[in-house]
């Protein structure tokens, strides 16, 4: 555990040392703030004291930002050769991947924590469904975790950051919107399966304040799958043939 924490901390500091963190947080707050409070469709126009607008816009901004955060995680280590240094330290590949994952996730959590003033503001505006807001934040965190996991996997496939970025978007877009579109055009079992695979299905039920184990299992299994695949890619050099 201590090793994972050391790796996580290094990862997080490297985001803050390299401006990535600041750019990402400022852009995230700028975009979500604009759409939540200022755009044509803002909270005051809708007239409801909730954060649905914010969750709706974060659903998309995070989708694009996360591959930008995760693209360098493993690809840069491979390109510069530091992966050799890291793998020969007293850590397992599993700890390396977990450290990267937690570092990126913490950055997203920091960005989301910066929007807590939004929450405080809406509680002053009217009666707020606290369950829905907590569920929405929770949903955003789980969705981010899933895309981070996919992003790290994409990064483990290549030593080119741009390729990793695009690959993460490509895999992500299926879960983000394509399965949903496909599901709406099909019926029966296929429709159900596609619907279950779509992130929106699970995110929306969470952001209504409904905590269903099926949603948790959905996110947990994709997070785990991404991490396992990344670990496999990393330990491939260690196979005997």
């Amino acid at each position: 555990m201590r090793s994972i924490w050391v790796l996580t901390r290094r990862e997080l500091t490297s985001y803050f040392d390299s401006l990535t963190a600041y750019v990402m947080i400022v852009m995230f707050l700028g975009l979500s703030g604009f759409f939540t409070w200022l755009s044509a469709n803002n909270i005051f126009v809708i007239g409801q004291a909730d954060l649905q607008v914010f969750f709706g816009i974060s659903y998309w901004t995070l989708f694009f930002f996360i591959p930008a955060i995760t693209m360098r995680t493993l690809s840069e280590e491979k390109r510069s050769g530091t992966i050799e240094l890291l793998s020969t330290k007293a850590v397992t590949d599993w700890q390396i991947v977990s450290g990267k994952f937690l570092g990126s996730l913490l950055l997203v959590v920091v960005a989301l924590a910066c929007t807590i003033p939004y929450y405080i503001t809406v509680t002053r505006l009217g009666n707020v469904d606290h369950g829905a807001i907590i569920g929405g934040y929770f949903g955003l965190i789980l969705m981010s975790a899933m895309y981070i996991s996919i992003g790290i996997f994409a990064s483990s496939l290549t030593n080119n950051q741009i390729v990793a970025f695009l690959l993460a978007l490509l895999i992500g877009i299926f879960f983000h919107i394509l399965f949903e579109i496909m599901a709406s055009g099909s019926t029966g079992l296929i429709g159900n399966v596609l619907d279950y695979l779509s992130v929106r299905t699970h995110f929306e039920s969470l952001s209504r304040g409904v905590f269903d184990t099926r949603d948790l299992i959905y996110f947990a299994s994709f997070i785990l799958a991404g991490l396992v695949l990344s670990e496999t890619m990393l330990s491939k050099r260690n196979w005997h043939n």
Partner: protein
Amino acid sequence: MAIVVENLTKKYGDQKAVDNISFEVRTGEVVGFLGPNGAGKSTTMKMITCYMAPTEGKIFLEGLDVDKNPEEIKKRIGYLPENNPLYTEMAVIDYLRFCAEIQGVEKEKISERIHEMVDVCGLGLEKHKRIGELSKGYRQRVGLAQAMIHDPEVLILDEPTTGLDPNQIIEIRKLIKELGKEKTVILSSHILSEVEATCDRILIINRGKIVADGTSETLRGQAQGREMLKVQIEASNGADKEAVKKALLGLASVETVKELEEKENYFLIQNKPEASSKKEIFDLCVKNKWYLLELTGIETKLEDVFRELTN
């Protein structure tokens, strides 16, 4: 910590980078891997440090199988990879702290270890700079510092002195010799004088195979078991060059005599294996009342050994 390598093979596709090599390194020995580029030195090191698994063969550190106990082994090894990759965006001192923490150095000892490494590697003035701002020589020192930060029993250094200026090279060599008194050190190089200056033992590797193994003296001896001499003789009593040459060839221990152009009556003599002709030449001169102006032994250089074995 003793290192035992048994029948190690590493294939990249069809190509064998390391081809069935076996050797042992005893505790406290400084061993140099010497070989041309692409000989398999780095690959062997990568396998010992648990970065890559061998295709076949086993490596044991103090009886522990590297394949089965990588966590334990990695704690006890310090590794400086080829090209010295580093996190360039980190400050030197932060990077050393990170390495110490990740190698499991006890919390209370971390600061002390960092200070020691900064001192030993001469990083005092640079410790707060970002690694990316450092010159190549200083980066190399950071690389060495990170390899030694957890006081490992084994040090594996892949080309430790590349990019250093001559003063730094001498310092680093001194440091390696110092470390070698209590630690097991394997270093690689293609600079012969370096290996000769720092190592107790040399393994010459070529095309994935060990072609020679021994101290620099034994290697020189192996490659050239014959003594070579340069001789200049002034034959005052009227004997010409040919006569002198003939007389030299007549000696029991002399194999060949070659005329050299630089000076008058100047010869290059190669002796028969394990024989010395120095005394005989002297006696010959005394007998014929010639003057022996020069009698120099030519030392076989490690360069010659290397060239002979790797070509």
